[in-house]
């Protein structure tokens, strides 16, 4: 499995994704006009796609990182354990992303 590089790639994506988070927070602190701009962007197709990708990168990096913490502690080095951890991170990351988006759509009432 080539998931090591995916961990790194999602990390780099999250790194630049913080710009969106910072923009959102600054806009919220600035005023209604600035906040409406962010909402217009995150509400657009491209914006939704980026935020969806960001959610997946975060969830995958989180689970993949937990896998590294397990290895740091000296567990999970047997072949089937490594496979299980890797598949767990991959499938778990996708599942958590979808779960978060379902909850998000339920929260904001089926899309803004």
């Amino acid at each position, binding site marked *: 499995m080539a998931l090591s590089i995916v961990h*790194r790639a999602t*990390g*780099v994506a*999250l*790194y630049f994704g*913080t*710009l969106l*988070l*910072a923009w959102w*927070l*600054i*806009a*919220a*602190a600035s*005023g*209604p006009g*600035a*906040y*409406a701009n962010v909402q217009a962007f995150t509400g657009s197709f491209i914006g939704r796609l980026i935020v969806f990708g960001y959610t997946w990168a975060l969830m995958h990096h*989180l689970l993949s*990182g*937990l896998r590294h*913490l397990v290895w*740091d502690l000296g567990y999970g080095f047997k072949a089937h354990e490594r496979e299980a951890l890797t598949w767990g991170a991959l499938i778990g990351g996708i599942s958590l992303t979808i779960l*978060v988006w379902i*909850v*998000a759509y339920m*929260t*904001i*009432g089926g899309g*803004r």
Partner: protein
Amino acid sequence: MNAPKPSMRTPLARVRALGSSHSGTSDFWRQRLTAVAMTLLIVPVIVVVLMLLGSNQAGAKQIFSSVPIAIIMLLFILASAWHMKIGMQVVIEDYVHNEKIKLASVMANNFFCIAVALASIYAILKMSSGV
């Protein structure tokens, strides 16, 4: 790195195990420290983000006026900025082999992480103090 203190240890003993970064495993440790911190914070952070999604700017300000919410977000931003600074430095050191470009990249990485962290922290403090 702390200034060398008077010591009976030989110069060799002092530098041993510190590696080429001269600071030993401190980045390795902090990377794990911030990772565990964010793992503990991720559920409350997602809840806060979901609360913010459904609200307008006035509502967002209202949400950040809550002290626990502001503190949770501040902790998460601090941990993530530190984590991504270390992570990006590892990536730079792995792929950039020209010494000058490497130095410039590491410096730019520090600027980026500090700027993003400070901007986010300022925004949260501004909202939570109701200005």
